């Protein structure tokens, strides 16, 4: 499509385009699955896309912005502005149901809300002794007999787990 032909594509169409952009670190997820795109609107002929970072230091943030720009320019959007929005802070609650399913099939255990310990730290300290038991199920064999190896995994959004049934290590997309 020639640039300039879609100057005012509907926001539904834009959301559709954005849903085709893979997350740079977990390519089975799209940016819309991840929930980082907070708003799409036209302002006097300029398309404004509002993006929120997952983690403050996530190196993928810059790549995400570049990918959005590249995609929308390829689709013919000429006037484009990206805005960063911190509030409300990104949460894994915004991961779409479809996204969670895709994560599991990709071998990454999706966030389990029930695993998030919301008790005050003081109440948790007494139980802090070594790798904790969890109800995170293994994305390969579905066993719940798993344990946390480390609170951080291969990217800021993941923790490292191990399945004690099939013995495979796996990434868990941490609740945030």
């Amino acid at each position, binding site marked *: 499509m020639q640039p300039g032909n879609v100057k005012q594509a509907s926001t539904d169409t834009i959301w559709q385009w954005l849903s085709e952009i893979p997350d740079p670190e977990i390519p089975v997820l799209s940016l819309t699955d991840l929930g980082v795109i907070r708003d799409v609107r036209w302002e006097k002929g300029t398309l404004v896309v509002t993006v929120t970072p997952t983690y403050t*230091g*996530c190196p993928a943030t810059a790549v995400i912005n570049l990918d959005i720009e590249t995609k929308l320019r390829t689709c013919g959007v000429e006037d484009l502005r990206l805005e960063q929005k911190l509030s*409300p802070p990104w949460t894994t609650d915004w991961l779409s149901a479809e996204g969670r399913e895709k994560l599991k099939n990709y071998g990454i255990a999706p966030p389990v809300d029930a695993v998030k310990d919301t008790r005050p*730290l003081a109440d948790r*300290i007494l139980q802090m002794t*070594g790798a904790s038991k969890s109800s995170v199920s293994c994305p390969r064999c579905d066993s719940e007999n798993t344990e946390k190896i480390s*609170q*951080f*995994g291969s990217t800021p959004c993941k923790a490292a787990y191990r399945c004690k049934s099939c013995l495979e290590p796996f990434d868990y997309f941490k609740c945030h």
Partner: protein
Amino acid sequence: MAMSGDIIANDILFEWLLRRGDTPLILGHRVSEWCGHSPVLEEDIALANVALDLIGQSRLWLTYAGEVEGKGRGENELAFLRDAWDFRNFLLAEQTNGDFGKTLMRQFLIDAYQVPFLAALESSGNERISEIAAKAGKEAVYHLDRSADLVIRLGDGTPESHKRMQTALDMLWAYTGEMFAGDAVDEAMFDASLAPKPENLRPQWQKTVDMVLDQATLKIPQSDFAHQGGLSGRHSEHLGHLLADMQFLQRAYPGATW
């Protein structure tokens, strides 16, 4: 947009924002020094991720600081082109890594401070401050979970790990008092309902520290002597060495970009 309006003078807000940004920046750099050197792979990855979070938080604070200052300095100029006496981080953050135990103890003592501090900032009268605090606070809670857990496991571990954790605590304890000292800048921020008084955070910090160190079977040093100077730019000799490493590229090749 960066105007703080009538509530507070820009130079005071700027000074306060540097303090917020410099502690995670310097601690983040320190933690990143472990990259490729940790005792086990999982911890190497965890340390690198913690460093990443801290540097990310610092970027938000320093970007805002640059806007408030209004002299065209951004996060990069503030991070890479200031010398030691212009840094406003806690002395605790710049202390050397030592062994893994000392690194973890330093992290824990700061995390236990950042969690209540950032939580209190969420109700700041300045929207930008409250947004950054809400974002950074979620990460700080996760960091504290990790550092507290490891301090307990290593403190209540083998005789060797216990000894190292106690040595680290004894060494670092005298740097904790500075976090609650406060000065005229903190006073002004408090009066304008923009930030809590550091001294008011002490009970929450103390409660976390007491509980965790008790579980870790570690003894809190009796002395309440506190090294001070970070907030006015009088640093320990370690900061200059750290900056020589962190700022080398921008000093040798001014303006270099990716």
